[in-house]
């Protein structure tokens, strides 16, 4: 087997384009991904047209909330680019300089204070369906966050007004008059009423005191109601197993797994198919000349290499190449994204098992296809859709389809390799053993399928 391995390495070394792709591809992917994850703008670029009057405020009783605060909230949520007019904003969107434009209309405070109409913003965007979807979801998310923050400011102002009504105090910092609160009125009025002779006046005072008590009780509730309206339900997330995986780290694992899959499958499938295409498979697998001195022995010499040996050699070559390159990718991306290097032994384990299973899939494809181009095409057509299917979150599609996707993902090694690497790199699952066992099982299964595909040497 070692001579065949040496031969394949020699051929690989002489295939300059393939070798260049093998070296440049992971480096390029690692660099691109690293830069995208660590340096890319996390906030969308948005043009802002602020037509509101400087110093415009929203008045709540005696409190004032400046509209500029809302504008600042919005600017914090996006990578803003201020423009002076709507026409200029449209120009920026059309040219692709910004993802979208937001127009804050004049009189925003008046509309916010008005009970007759809701305040409105104008969002301008363009592009194809994908860009439109991205712009809408991104801007709506930014606006929702700004709205939430502005709402919190309004609630704070409203709560202070209510607190003054309940407990009393000065109406404004400019007013010197100290007012009684609703909570103190029933007691005060009760004392006054008790000094009155029984009659209509006393009854009226007692009724007013009872009403003030009722009003105070309900205003106390109003503060809580305000908070509930602002954010009706708070989210308390509980992760059942493992630790929380940041999206960036998961993206790293996906990128490395995808690259490893392509390298393994293409190299292994191409390696086996090349033996057929060069017609050397029959020469390798045919019986070897037996002992020339043996007289009269039947023809039962061993092959130059067994079918199992040939498949193992191709699997090992593809797996080892992809293993080295995938590890280099992880290390390269690690320069940009903080990865936990203390888990490096688990990385290596996951990469090794993943590379073997994916290479076994590759040799099966190579054994079933009869030429390199067909094998490469089949490898791409098979693996890429399967990889995307494996990334579909479970339960995000209908039950029947989810079951099919789960079954397909179980049968092919990409998802298992991804899960093993995610566990190894991010600790997304408490134990890696199950994923490794799954990968080992798939290695054997695809090895057996490859052996079946190689039953004829011609």
């Amino acid at each position, binding site marked *: 087997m070692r001579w065949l391995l040496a031969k394949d390495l020699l051929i690989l070394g002489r295939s300059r384009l393939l070798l260049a792709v093998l070296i440049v591809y992971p480096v390029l992917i690692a660099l691109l991904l690293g830069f995208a994850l660590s340096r890319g703008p996390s906030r969308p670029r948005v043009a802002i047209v602020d037509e509101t009057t400087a110093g415009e405020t929203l008045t709540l009783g005696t409190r004032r909330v400046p509209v500029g605060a809302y504008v600042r909230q919005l600017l914090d949520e996006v990578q803003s680019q201020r423009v002076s007019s709507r026409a200029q904003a449209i120009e920026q969107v059309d040219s692709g300089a910004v993802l979208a434009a937001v127009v804050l209309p004049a009189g925003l405070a008046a509309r916010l204070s008005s009970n007759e109409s809701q305040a409105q913003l104008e969002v301008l965007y363009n592009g194809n369906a994908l860009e439109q979807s991205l712009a809408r979801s991104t801007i709506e998310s930014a606006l929702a966050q700004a709205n939430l923050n502005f709402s919190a400011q309004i609630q704070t102002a409203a709560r202070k007004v209510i607190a003054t009504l309940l407990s009393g105090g000065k109406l404004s910092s400019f007013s010197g008059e100290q007012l009684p609160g609703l909570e103190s009125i029933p007691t005060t009025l009760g004392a006054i009423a008790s000094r009155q002779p029984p009659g209509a006046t006393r009854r009226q005072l007692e009724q007013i005191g009872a009403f003030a008590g009722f009003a105070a009780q309900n205003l106390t509730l109003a503060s809580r109601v305000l908070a509930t309206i602002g954010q009706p339900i708070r989210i308390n997330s509980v992760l059942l197993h493992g630790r929380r995986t940041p999206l960036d780290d998961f993206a790293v694992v996906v990128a490395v797994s995808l690259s490893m899959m392509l390298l393994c499958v293409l190299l292994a499938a191409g390696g086996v198919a090349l033996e057929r295409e060069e017609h050397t498979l029959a020469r390798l697998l045919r019986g070897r000349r037996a002992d020339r001195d043996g007289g*009269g022995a039947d023809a039962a010499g061993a092959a*130059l290499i067994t079918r199992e040996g040939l498949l193992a050699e191709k699997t090992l070559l593809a797996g080892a190449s992809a293993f080295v390159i995938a590890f280099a990718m992880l290390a390269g991306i690690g320069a940009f994204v903080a990865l936990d290097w203390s888990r490096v032994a688990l990385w290596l384990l996951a990469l090794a098992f993943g590379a073997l299973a994916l290479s076994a899939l590759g040799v099966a494809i190579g054994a079933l296809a009869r030429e390199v181009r067909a094998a490469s095409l089949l490898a791409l057509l098979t693996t890429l859709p399967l990889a995307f299917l494996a990334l579909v979150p479970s339960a995000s599609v209908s039950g029947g389809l989810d079951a099919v996707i789960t079954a397909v993902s179980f049968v092919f090694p990409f998802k298992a390799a991804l899960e093993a690497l995610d566990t190894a790199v991010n600790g997304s699952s408490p134990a890696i053993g199950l994923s490794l066992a799954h990968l080992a099982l798939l290695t054997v299964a695809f090895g057996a399928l490859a052996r079946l595909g190689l039953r004829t040497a011609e």
Partner: protein
Amino acid sequence: MSTVLGVHALSKRYGGGRAHAARQALDGVSFSLAAGELVALVGPNGAGKTTLLSILAGVQASSAGSVVRASAQATENEPTARGSWAVGWVPQTPALYSKLSAAENLELFARLERLPDPRAAAARMLEQTGLRARAREPVSRLSGGNRQRVNVALGLIADPPVLALDEPSSALDPSQRERLWQFIVARVAAGTTVLFSTHNVSEAQRYATRVLVLSGGLLLFDGTPAALLASSAEGELRGQEARGDLERALVSFLATRAAAGGAP
């Protein structure tokens, strides 16, 4: 002459599943090869020539029958797993690694054959095939004729007593063909037994000491070229030395046998 290879009641059946009808590629073929013989295997397309050679070479197994060496006692009707122990194989399409040089191809297969000195074996074959000057060039840059010489050299690298060649000259120009035959004849003179299939009957007439006629999986004739001429229905051809004579005799022979129901 001593027998080096015996073929006994060799049969090969393909298919028979739901998708494909069964086809009898070889049907009870028996013959033997003696040391230093140069035997031509002729017959129409689909006669079973390549199947027979590939079974002898161990590329595929027979459905029944046996291939044995020298005086070995074969078990009747026992399928052979491989019959390549003594048979060097030269397939019709060169089976070479095109990114490797002729020397590297030869050395690799010498190592896989576990020859004691792979480099020496490769150098010897390069010398014998006249390829020493181009030994380091990638095979992909060699001409068709030179590739075929490397292909033949690979078949001979382990110095087998029998060499099976499948249409060795079909893709060569006349001068390349001539050089190839000079090499093969030299090997035969050195004691190697050569069995080659060909559609070029003039080659069989010129070089072969014996002709096997295969048609529809049946071995219809086993004898010298002169005997084939003699058995032809066109008796007037007998004795003529024109190059096309054996071809006409073969066509006539096959037509006669077909009419008599000797071949499908």
